[in-house]
């Protein structure tokens, strides 16, 4: 909220209030699923294993964000990891879940390094435009 960019500062002032609800909502669901049935616990544990490899990339710095941080417009994502670990850690502890010990996903999408999944995603998203070139509505 102390961003030197007025628009970003305004957006984050709104976001801070709304994020309260989102954090509480998702924490409640983690607790509900982890403490529910054997099946729900199995599923949330598996879901954590599938998504955890992507956590590290959220906190990677690159040249663009370093420039923004330098001008005071943004903060370095790497500086936020501690808060994340503390917050998520508290929920996982209460849910009696553990942060999975899994290797990080290769990542690199922002650097133009993509996996074979991108081809399928683009094909799916482009199918309508390709079947009806020039269409508008």
């Amino acid at each position, binding site marked *: 909220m102390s961003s030197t960019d*007025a628009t970003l500062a305004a957006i984050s002032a709104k976001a801070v209030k*709304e994020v309260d609800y989102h954090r509480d909502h998702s924490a409640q669901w983690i607790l509900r699923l982890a403490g529910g049935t054997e099946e729900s616990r199995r599923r949330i544990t598996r879901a954590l294993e599938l998504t955890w490899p992507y956590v590290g990339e959220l906190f990677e710095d690159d040249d663009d964000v370093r420039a923004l941080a330098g001008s005071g417009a943004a903060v370095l994502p790497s500086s936020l990891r501690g808060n994340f670990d503390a917050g998520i850690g508290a929920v996982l502890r209460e849910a009696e879940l553990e942060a999975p010990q899994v290797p990080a996903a290769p990542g690199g999408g922002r650097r133009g390094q993509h996996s074979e999944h991108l081809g399928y995603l683009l094909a799916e998203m482009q199918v309508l435009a390709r079947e009806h070139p020039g269409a508008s509505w």
Partner: protein
Amino acid sequence: MTDRNSSVTDLRPADPAAGRVWDIAATVCDPEIPVLTIEDLGVLRGVELTGPDAVTVAVTPTYSGCPAMDAIRQDVTAALNTAGYGRVRVDLVLAPAWTTDWMSEAGKAKLNAYGIAPPTGRAAAGPVRLGLSVKCPQCSSLNTRELTRFGSTSCKALYVCSDCSEPFDYFKVL
């Protein structure tokens, strides 16, 4: 910059010509909750006459990405066009951040009559908003419980009344 605590009545311009513009813009209703005007909601934040038939209107979104804002902007433009203002600009202002504290008492009464429980308590009172009982808009019982934090829209939660068994939406304090 509008003072965070300005009630809507403070924002209506005193000047009669600008006041007329405000009154027209203030008739526009929330497309999701058609009993509420953008004035009731505190969404209408200011008007300015920039020429004989040119106006600028400032509105603020309730929640980030609120999908009703496009419709509201179009409706404001149409209402002012009909009233003879050929050139209308609607600006979306993000700061100060909208709060349910800006909802008028009249607006809260209209919400309740419509079947949506209005926000209880003031956001400015601090982060501890949970715990205030929500009154059932149907039977007025305080014996209600939350079913889900996000209901039909981001701004509302879904509750159920344990006395009359009716579910109802609650407009959350923000």
